[in-house]
């Protein structure tokens, strides 16, 4: 249950961007305008993959002011749980999908006087919408974008043409050019905010470098979507719904509950937002917390679990759901 405001959409266009990235455009089936969103927002796309319901969050990358449609870009991830493969191989123009209302857990801080964006690979997508907004509002920003190779990197040429080399800096692994994070963090006017989206190692590295350069944590922002990690199957009893279920190897507790007809709350499905926080009634085993939401004290208490990404090892887990 995500407030039950999901929108049926038609796939209006599928555009290959690189070998591994495709862009999808969605328009509403009922002809109504899409809701406006703010840069950094994402939607959860629901896919019916041969009877398996898959729901993945994707950052919106179209112009936040354009309510004629939403656009997302999807990186094909081999050996993943299958959402990106489904999007790449099965989804064609004209198909019907369902998307959630936009949710923003990565909004720019409008009190900032300057905004520095660090992107790694497909982590560029939320920044494309953010930069539209900064540019429209005449707000100072610069983008530091790291890609593996010029052929694998998505959108870097278009961004360079649109905003110019003064604001867009491209770094290419293959050419041994890397983002000089320490130098950038070292010399910024007071009131600058920093945003990073990319692989986990990059996010950790950028945040740590900025903290060491004396930045307060309030000026540092990051977004990481965690795919639910696979693990051994386990048993869960949902007390309120009176459902005994097995959570499969490649399933999250949330996905298993949905497959059993339980309408559990969720928003980001990536362990970040806190919407799916569920009370643990009894736990004969160990909770494996994989989220970035619960505090250390909450984890230690053993009373709460984020069912979108966390797992369990042991005999029996009873949840208030």
């Amino acid at each position: 249950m995500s407030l039950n405001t999901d929108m049926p959409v038609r796939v209006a266009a599928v555009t290959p961007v690189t070998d591994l990235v495709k862009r999808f455009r969605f328009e509403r089936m009922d002809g109504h305008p899409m809701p406006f969103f703010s840069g950094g927002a994402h939607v959860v796309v629901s896919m019916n993959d041969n009877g398996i319901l898959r729901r993945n969050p994707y950052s919106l990358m179209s112009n936040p002011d354009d309510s004629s449609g939403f656009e997302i870009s999807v990186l094909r991830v081999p050996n993943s749980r299958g959402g990106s493969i489904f999007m790449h191989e099965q989804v064609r123009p004209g198909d019907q999908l369902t998307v959630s209302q936009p949710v923003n857990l990565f909004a720019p801080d409008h009190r900032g006087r300057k905004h520095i964006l660090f992107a790694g690979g497909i982590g560029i997508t939320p920044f494309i919408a953010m930069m539209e907004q900064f540019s429209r509002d005449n707000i100072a920003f610069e983008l530091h974008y790291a890609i593996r190779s010029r052929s694998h990197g998505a959108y870097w040429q278009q961004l360079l043409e649109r905003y110019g080399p003064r604001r867009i800096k491209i770094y290419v692994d293959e050419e041994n050019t890397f983002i000089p994070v320490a130098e950038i963090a070292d010399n910024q006017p007071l009131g600058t905010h920093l945003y990073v989206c990319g692989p986990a190692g990059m996010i950790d590295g950028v945040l740590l470098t900025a903290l060491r350069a004396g930045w307060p944590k309030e000026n540092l922002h990051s977004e990481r979507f965690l795919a639910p990690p696979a693990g051994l199957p386990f048993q869960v009893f949902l007390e309120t719904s009176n459902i005994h279920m097995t959570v499969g190897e490649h399933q999250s507790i949330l996905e298993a509950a949905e497959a059993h007809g339980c309408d559990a709350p969720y928003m980001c499905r990536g362990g970040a937002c806190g919407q799916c926080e569920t009370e643990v009634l009894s736990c004969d085993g160990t909770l494996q917390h994989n989220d970035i939401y619960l505090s250390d004290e909450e984890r230690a208490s053993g009373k709460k679990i984020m069912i979108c990404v966390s797992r369990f090892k042991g005999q029996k887990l009873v949840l208030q759901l």
Partner: protein
Amino acid sequence: MLVAGIKSRPEYKGLDVDAHAKRHLFVLEGEGAQALIDQVGAKGRDFLAKSEILYLAAAAAPKAYDVALSALSPDVFWHAPTLQPLLFRLRACLDLARMGTRLYIAGTEGFIGQIMQVAMEYGIDYHSIHTEHRGSAARRVQCVHCKGITDNVTTSPFACTHCGLPLLVRDHYSRRLGAFQGVNIDAEEPGTAPAPEEMFP
């Protein structure tokens, strides 16, 4: 007479010199000088070489804290004659400051509020500002009726210095204005306000 549990009531968690900061800007008033002197006692003198101190003696002038602060030999020490030039110089400091500069404010609540007002214009998140309340508990209060602000209010109710209404001083605080809210206490029956009580000595 104060309503407990008002969320906007500011908390002052005390100065705690940040080891990662590249530059420290201390803006101190009156007894707030002692908050920095205590930090030197607790953390050593190393951070002083990277520190700039703006000091307003105000009510603590007889205690000559300016001599003690100056004797710490910070990178820059400046003794402000009044609040206005201090705010002017603070803006100049913040204009030139880089990320990695940490702001510390200590003194009375009215002073802390007015310095934070300036800091927030520069995009500094108030959570990242270190504050410590020292000296008088007197409040800076905005009359919610005429919008006039009165400094150094020590009683509740008190007569608004702008419109004269007797005002109940609340814990309800505005960061934007750097002031507590004062609400007319005898609006239903004018002339029935209780006698002022010394609440913020």
